[in-house]
């Protein structure tokens, strides 16, 4: 077994031992998105429920009818619905920030983490995570901006070429590079998060430093694991969309909801798997051994047992009657 397999399998076993976290986050994701989509749902029901034309959206997927619907002033703008969707997506993100320390603590435990310990970890690390988030945002934002800027320059250069495919190739190659660099940064801050929680590290910069050092020293191993998991996520997404398009009858809304939600549930797993990988790595490589003071034990006086009366092994012979 090589290192990557160790990380991947170790991470996976943590995920499977703690499936409840994924289920809870899925429920949270669904609940918040339902709230976010409520405004749009009301708009759609008001507009479509009594119209015969809307049948063309059910029996097949008539894009022209959908475009017409959005173009109608009576349908109204989707600005409010879009805004609420984005707001609830942000809420989900904040919920992850809040509850992630508990998840990391749970992944590190060899037993099922009690609820109070989970929330204690969340509360204890909230402010540390916010600080971490700010640093990560600055670093990742700056790097992403620089890479995207460079990407844009290369795209403009490729546009001058008479080879039409070059633009596409440059675009894909550039996005792969950006993905790899951003994944490395993500590993750095994931390690820092694990360190903050599992070392109970109050000084966040120390965790950031430790995270960077370990990311740097083990980049190949960690990045390999992250890339494999991302590929799994991409396959899950494509498989889900493929199943949705090819196997779900157009008129079966229930089947469409089932397939789409199953896809979203499965899509949550890869990121938790990456967390599991980080915790596994932390426990293997980052946890500091507890210093044990060598000491000479005081001589213990030998126990002097009181004399025990000897019990005869055979019962005394009884007198005959």
């Amino acid at each position, binding site marked *: 077994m090589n290192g990557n397999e160790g990380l991947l399998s170790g991470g996976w076993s943590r995920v499977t031992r703690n499936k409840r976290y994924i289920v809870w986050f899925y429920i949270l994701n669904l609940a918040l998105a339902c709230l976010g989509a409520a405004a749009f749902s009301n708009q759609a029901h008001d507009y479509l429920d009594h119209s015969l034309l809307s049948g063309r959206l059910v029996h097949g997927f008539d894009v022209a009818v959908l475009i017409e619907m959005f173009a109608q002033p009576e349908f109204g703008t989707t600005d409010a619905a879009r805004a609420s969707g984005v707001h609830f997506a942000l809420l989900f993100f904040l919920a992850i920030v809040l509850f992630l320390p508990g998840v990391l603590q749970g992944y590190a435990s060899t037993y099922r983490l009690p609820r109070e310990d989970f929330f204690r970890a969340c509360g204890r690390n909230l402010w540390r995570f916010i600080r971490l988030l700010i640093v990560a945002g600055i670093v990742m934002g700056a790097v992403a901006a620089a890479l995207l800027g460079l990407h844009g320059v290369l795209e403009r250069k490729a546009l001058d070429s008479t080879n039409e495919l070059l633009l596409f190739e440059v675009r894909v190659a550039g996005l792969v590079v950006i993905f790899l660099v951003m994944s490395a940064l993500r590993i750095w801050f994931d390690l820092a998060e694990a360190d903050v929680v599992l070392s109970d590290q109050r000084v966040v910069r120390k965790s950031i430093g430790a995270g960077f050092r370990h990311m740097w020293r083990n980049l190949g191993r960690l990045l390999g694991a992250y890339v494999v998991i991302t590929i799994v996520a991409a396959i899950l997404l494509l498989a889900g969309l493929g199943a949705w*398009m090819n196997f779900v009858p157009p008129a079966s809304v229930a089947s469409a909801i089932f397939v789409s939600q199953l896809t979203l549930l499965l899509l949550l797993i890869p990121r938790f798997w990456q967390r599991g990988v980080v915790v596994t790595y932390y426990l293997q490589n980052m946890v500091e051994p507890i210093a044990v003071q060598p000491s000479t034990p005081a001589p213990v006086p030998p126990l002097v047992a009181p004399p025990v009366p000897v019990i005869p092994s055979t019962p005394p012979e009884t007198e005959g009657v």
Partner: protein
Amino acid sequence: MKIRWVIVLFPLLSVVLISVLVQEHAAKAAASQAPAAPASASSVMAAGSNGSASLTIPDTTLAINSPRPMSQRVVHYEIDAKYDATRHTVDATEVLTYHNLTGQALDHFPFHLYQNAFQPNSTFVREGKILGTRDTRYDKWEEKEFGSEDIKSIEVVGQGDLTSQLKFIQPDDGNKDDKTVVDLPMARAIPPGGYVQFKIAFQTKFPETQARSGWKRDFVLGGQWFPKVGVWWHGAWNCHQYHAMSEFFADFGVYDVKLTVPSYEVVGASGVKVGEVNNPDNRKTVAYHGDDIHDFAWTASPRYKVKDDGVYQGQMGPVQMRILMQPAHWSQVERHEKILKESLEHFESWYGPYPYKTITLVDPEPDSAAGGMEYPTFITGETSWFMPDGFYMPELVVEHEFGHQYWYGMVATNEFEDAWMDEGINSYTEVKVLDSILGKRTSILNLVGATAGERELQRGDYASVADLDPIAQKAYDYYSGNSYAGVTYGKTASMLLTLEGIIGEDTMAKAMRVYFMKYRFTHPTKEDFLKTIEEVSGKNLRWYFDQAIYGSQVLDYKVLRVDSYPVNWYEQKRSLFQKEDKNTVYRSSVWIQRKGDFVMPVELEVKFDNGGKVREHWDGVSRWTKFTYEKKAKVESAELDPDHKIQIDRNDFNNSYTAEPDGKPARKVTNYWLFVTQWLGQALAWWAV
């Protein structure tokens, strides 16, 4: 080397490698423009020569399948042009012979200098900056956007050099900085029936492609590139400035054009090729001849792949289909040829014969703003290297531009003043032809279960700008670019589809054929078209034209409400478990409303839950009306325009009402929205924390 260094260096090396590749490609492209080896000069030129002294318009029929001219030929252009592929300029001489068929003496001649539109203070750019153009935003001015068309000298045969008499005029907006029209006073007026010949030397500098003309990388599309005389129309010169939202107008005639280009160029142009000669300076001269056309465009690129073995047997004779494709799109050449052929078949069968011997279809340089354009016998398509089979954008563009051979090319309406008569009528025939070829609801898209039809998209374009402008309006007077497009294309197509519903599909088809056959090779007005429809249908349609074409009224009918209740409701016991009595008589009412200010009779179909149907007719004069029934059945649904004849109703969703709501469509659409929202949240959480 440790693995981490490999991983760190990989992105850096990738960036460097990509840069090198890009540079290499650019270098190759430049190399391909370098002069090629000297070619033999054995070909013989067959084109008409410059400086012809005979003041007449030739009656040649070299480029048409007709033994005699088909148009009243007013002009004969003989142009000898040399293209500089490095500077993107054309240095040319032009001999224009003009036949005065106006019935009166002409003492001045206006000329279009279209390429002068691409200058920062031109009317085109001023309007484009506010309204937008189809392809350029003018956020900042770049030198490569500059275009010009300079008359170096102009001589009128028999009157001498009149260059000093040229004067820029601005008949539309008085913008003194606009140089797209120049007027030439004559020393002596040209009498009715007389001829005049102009000998012009000019230089055109193309911009990087704008408004479907100019260069991109090593490609060039020469459109509106030479001084063109205006049209004497309804007792006056009609020579508008070039506007951001206008196209063109010109007289029919004969074109003899010689193009000298680098010898590596592959050339395509209007008309038929009549000669090619290799020059000693690594250049070649290609000659083209066009009959009964009113414009001449050409293109050149070293990388075109050509398919010219396709011949369509037309009603008047064979038509050679010449297709110039980008190398990366070569796999789509059959697709382009197929739709071109099918368009030819449909137009010939429905409207009239295509008389020209050639049709050239150009797949222009990607990202060049040269796609989707029409010139006589010469059109540009639009596609990309990735084009799934069920996405019919290339078919739509080719069909549309081919349709312009009829509605613009032969029926040569004034595109400045009646843009709807070429773009709109063409959009209507586009819907008809694509419906026939690709299916009514799948004429744009038929891919992995998703479908889209052209007629709904046309109405969608119009719906968002329904109350802004009438159809009958000058192209440059629209409120915005969106309004121009939505009304000129979308509303006109929807209006004519509705007209088809009023007079019948067969009658409409006949009227269109009569209109084409009567007005081909002329410049009809909007009334010519409308009167033809009235004559063929035998109906007075002014009530419709006044609202739909001359007015900006909006048509929007709505089923307001549907209601059914038992007539003896007061006798009925209230019980949750009471079964409905089949003998219960219901009083049902349906309210319908005219929401817009467009008044038009409409049909209403009411369906009952026992399967019965009733059809009603409403004149639409009042704002609303009510229909009431007493039946042993409740109303199930009510639908206005049940045969879907009124395409111009800007909102089809409110044309029907079902008594029982069906939440399925909304749930389906909401599921997409929900999926995207959830996925967005997950993606954000993935990368941000």
